[in-house]
């Protein structure tokens, strides 16, 4: 096993891509182990650097700090090092782009087609340039995109399908007490409305004690 490297705070800042303040905060929050002795001569180890890199990777997956702490705290240095060495799994399974594609029924714009169409349409002033870092793993999908770009298109000549009248009724959530809620679909008929009103008043009287 190679000897452990030693790092100063500045080394850790440069290699980890964080500020000294962040490092101190992580130590205070138990995300990084304490370096032992404090002061200007403080040294840090590979264990610190690997943990810092793992935290940054988990942050890229938009995990809250508390969740990161609970995941990282129980790991030993060797496991942390192995995780940092492992290739990142990007985009994460639950990424924003996957989520949106799920909601929109998987007919999301294929990157390649979208890009080509835009470049062609903006030719007078030159192409905009491709996205800096297209997310890997998005195979170009040659299905018809769900929408068209803003160029003159005969598709617009057709009137849009008639839209169904929106349903304006809605559920109102009324909080009666910290643990008690009432759900009401409005609008209500006059009689039902008066009764619900009465119910809310009685519930408030019963449940709200010692309120200022």
């Amino acid at each position: 096993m190679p000897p452990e490297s030693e790092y100063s705070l500045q080394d850790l800042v440069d290699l980890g891509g964080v500020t000294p303040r962040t490092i101190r905060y992580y130590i205070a929050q138990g995300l990084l182990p304490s370096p032992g002795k404090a002061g200007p001569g403080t040294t840090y180890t590979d264990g610190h650097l690997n943990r810092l890199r793992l935290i940054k990777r988990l942050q890229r997956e938009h995990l809250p700090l508390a969740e990161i702490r609970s995941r990282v705290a129980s790991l030993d240095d060797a496991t942390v090092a192995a995780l940092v060495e492992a290739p990142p799994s990007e985009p994460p399974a639950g990424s924003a782009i996957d989520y949106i594609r799920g909601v929109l029924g998987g007919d999301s714009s294929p990157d390649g087609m979208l890009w080509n169409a835009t470049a062609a349409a903006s030719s007078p002033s030159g192409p905009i340039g491709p996205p800096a870092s297209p997310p890997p793993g998005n195979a170009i999908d040659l299905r018809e995109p769900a929408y068209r770009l803003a160029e003159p298109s005969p598709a617009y000549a057709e009137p849009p399908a008639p839209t169904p009248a929106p349903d304006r009724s809605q559920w109102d959530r009324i909080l009666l007490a910290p643990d008690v809620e009432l759900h009401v679909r409005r609008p209500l008929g006059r009689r039902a409305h008066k009764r619900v009103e009465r119910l809310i008043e009685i519930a408030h009287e019963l449940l709200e004690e010692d309120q200022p």
Partner: protein
Amino acid sequence: MTFHVRSDRQLIRPIHRSNRFVLVEVAAPPARSERVRPPVNLAFVLDRSGSMGGEKIRLAKQAIEEAIARLHDDDRFAIVVYDDRVDVVVPGTLAGPDARRSALDRLREIDARGSTNLGEGWLRGAEQVARALADEGVNRCLLLTDGLANVGITDRDELARHAGELRARGVSTSTFGVGEDFDEVLLQAMASAGGGHFRFIATAASIRDHVTSEVGETLEIVARGVTLEIGAAEGIRVESLSPYPTTEVRGRTEITLGDLTSEERVEVVLRLNFPYGELGRTTGVALTLSDRDGVVGGDAKLGWAYADNGANDHQQRDYTVDRAVARVFAARARQEAVGRNRHGDFEGARRIIEATARRIRGYAGRDPELRGIVDELERQLQEFAAPMMEIDRKVMYASSSYQMRSRMADGTAMKDPNRGGR
């Protein structure tokens, strides 16, 4: 950075479920002038349905132009417009000079027509942001509309749920509602769950100011994903009266305050409900503030003692907390009353305002600010008790929304008074 917590009272009753209120005050540090701002990644989503015609769309386009002009070369932006169809006018791109020039050309070609597929328009904007998430910076979709969602996904809860899911995956949402025909409950819910802000724009003339200030605040964000975590002793129930997204995990309450801009000041009002307890025993809660990058952070503890009724009745109150509690209850009552008024329930609207005024009067004592809140509610009684103009409802709803979320009357971030602002 500021992180202060205080309670309205220190004593609780042994044989009673006492409610006590806690005020949490957070202020973000200023953005340092030498700071290299991390790149932002924005999508502008513009409603181009028929009703946006004329001034509204012209001024909205102008606002987007100005916002794009403020971006640096390493920022990213996208422009999406929608009516019943959705057009990605500018797919997510680096904001280099050519891209900006080309975007302005394409923006000028947009005019208003059709009905409104708000849901898909917004999701397409979020998709452009999600394609190239900025690790260090802010990823946000800005949605500007003057109408209802009436094509595609139209359900409020569903749209708000998607906004929350996207926030958890790194894409936040801010919304702008123009005029009197949009659905403020929807736009507020999307922004709340989406970790951004809702802004009400009463007249087309102020579209520019609102978009510019929201983009400005986004560029000056100093702390991302700020959360307040509360751990309470057994039996204490914790509830946030301030309307921030709240989750409960293994007995700990986590309140998401979202991204804070330079020197932004946020107040959170909590209601604690205590179990019965032995006379003389003490109990309490621990609060932790943190964010994704370790910019803000701190721990605080608050304790209460079980005491007899006489001591409880004569204990000191912290009026600063009472005032914050009263402001939140008054704002909640106004929003509820606006909803009743819209449904034609004028008597219900009046009763809510009256009951809230009565309750606040009960503990206002001689405090001028508390009495002011009561007076204002009483003045508004008659207004709520008769049909209101829709624009007045919108104004009332938005001002209450802002008040509950520590925003100024114009919807901008409240700044730390200890620093004198910019």
